[in-house]
């Protein structure tokens, strides 16, 4: 299995990753990958000048969610790039990183070797002169738009109001964020079921400061930057939903028993 085929160098970088962390007010910031696929990397850059007046990478930090090779390639790329001129660092390729690590298992070459891409993204971010994105906390109201399946499954797992929470006991319930009332419902529902998911188009956990605090402490799962596209099922019962992730611009399915959309006007 792939796990056994990691080189000593890969394992060394996995066990003792270099340059872990973030940089406050970075000059460049890059993020690639997708937690849905199992890999997400961020790279932070601090840029200075060398005696020739060229841009150089003074400091570089990374954070990674991913498998062994994802961590190792991130660590390696930061080690390679530190102190390099920006032009040279930009030329680091995926295979350069793999080579420095004495190779990666073939199955990991395409999926986990995103580190070089994250570095390029960070350099691009610096060169374009855009300030690294500052994430804004906003609660967002549901647009008036059509969610496929709402009418078909209304009363069969789709709720536009929930007068009796008992009906949702132990049900995997997806709640569409339609403002604080829906978030309060999510919190309340955790007393009835262990699985409450809130899908929100917001980038950060939405709601008032107090609700955000409570949500963070609760077991409510928040799916950010996403929207509910479709409700699916068989024999008049909700079985799953299709979620659209706009950050990644892709759709995926999630098994649920109930969907709550308060104030649906679609």
């Amino acid at each position, binding site marked *: 299995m792939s796990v056994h085929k990691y080189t000593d160098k890969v394992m060394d970088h996995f*066990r003792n990753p270099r340059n872990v962390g973030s940089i406050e007010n970075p000059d460049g910031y890059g993020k690639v990958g997708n937690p849905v696929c199992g890999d997400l990397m961020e790279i932070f850059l601090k840029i200075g000048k060398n005696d020739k007046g060229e841009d150089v990478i003074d400091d570089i930090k990374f954070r990674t*969610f991913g498998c062994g090779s994802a961590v190792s390639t991130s660590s390696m790329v930061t080690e390679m790039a530190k102190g390099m001129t920006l032009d040279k660092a930009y030329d680091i390729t995926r295979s350069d990183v793999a080579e420095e690590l004495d190779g990666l298992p073939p199955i990991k070459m395409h999926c986990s070797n995103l580190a070089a891409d994250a570095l390029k993204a960070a350099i691009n971010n610096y060169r374009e002169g855009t300030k690294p994105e500052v994430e804004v906390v906003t609660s967002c109201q549901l647009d008036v738009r059509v969610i496929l399946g709402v009418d078909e499954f209304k009363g069969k797992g789709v709720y536009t109001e929930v007068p009796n929470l008992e009906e949702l006991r132990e049900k995997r319930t997806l709640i569409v964020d339609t403002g604080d009332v829906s978030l309060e419902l999510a919190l309340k529902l955790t007393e009835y079921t262990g699985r409450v998911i809130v899908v929100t188009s917001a980038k950060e956990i939405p709601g008032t400061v107090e609700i955000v605090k409570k949500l963070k402490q609760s077991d409510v799962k928040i799916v950010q930057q996403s929207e509910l596209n479709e409700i699916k099922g068989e024999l008049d019962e909700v079985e799953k939903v299709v979620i659209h992730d706009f950050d990644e611009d892709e759709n995926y399915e999630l*098994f649920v028993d109930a969907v709550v959309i308060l104030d649906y006007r679609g």
Partner: protein
Amino acid sequence: MSVYLDYQAAKPVDPRVFEAMKPYFNEDFGNPSSLHNYGYHATNTLEESRRKVAEFINAPSPDNIIFTSGATESNNLGVIGAALRNQRKGNHIIMSEIEHISILNIGKFLERQGFRVSKVPVDRFGIINLNKLERLITDETILISVSTASNEIGSLQPVEEIGDIAQKKKIWFHSDAVASESTIPIDVEKVPFDLLTLSSNDIYGPRGIGALYLKKGVRVNPIIIGGGQEMGIRSGSENMPGIVGFAKAAEIMKTEINEEATRLKVLRDKLIREILKIPKSYLNGHPEKRTPNNANFRFDYIEGESLLLSLKDEKVEVATGSACSSKTLEPSHTLISCGLLHEEAHGSLLLTLGRYTEEKDIDKIVEVLPRIVRRLRILSPLTPSDLLKKLKEEEN
């Protein structure tokens, strides 16, 4: 020595089993099909072994047992054999969303052969929806295949109820019993199974041998054609050392199963109690209705292969439902069917205990895991900033 907590993937052969097998490699090496003395001995041994395996599941007759090369073949013979046998009656087969991959892929194969396959969904604990099962049945339905327990999350399926439904509707019920074979006694006189898949390695016997139980009156079409061994249902010269080992393993398991299951449950419950003290950690599967040797966790913000590798460094050997450790790069279909998001399924950790697991093994993982989870969370961009701050303080 490593701490081994992956008994669902492979179990060591019990030394008592290994001893029993030895003479059958080069002393009693006869082929039961031969008529001379070697053959005669082999026939006796074969039927004696068949009797022991039948007793293990309380089957009324040894003739109910067909030896195969293992659980995968038993599933193939049971499901494909039953489908082919009954194709004039109907072409519809029902299985659960969380069947073992060997069943799901048989379903895909049968679909290509013109059968229609429906999958019953499961609840958030991985237990099938009986009501839905009943409603999926049509006049065309010929077979229901639902395993006794999930090999990943250990969730126990309501097999008695499924059997009753199948009986009432005159549909055959096949079940893969592999995941619960070593911890939950099987009694085919109590639960109306029509076909049942058994594996030898899952009860500490050798690999390469298994069995399919067929209730009296249930016949399947053979899928391996040849000299007509195993009552014409499974051809090929019998794997005598394997059969003897399987029978010995079944004999031991029958006498020790209750005591062993009780012992493992105490250890497993301690494991669950201790691991769930880690913040943002969750148990996958049902809190009670699960095999006594199974624990399946998930940890927010981290990925399973990284967990596995870090535990390996501490000499603790485990499994994960993460895509990164699978051949297909897809996360566990079982966890997804329970309603987990991909990123949650990626962070899962599967621990299975067995005959040689001791309390010190549990103590070891309980000691090292919180530290590993903390280290990987500090590394992860998904960790929320307030938790990250707290973790960093703990680390120092």
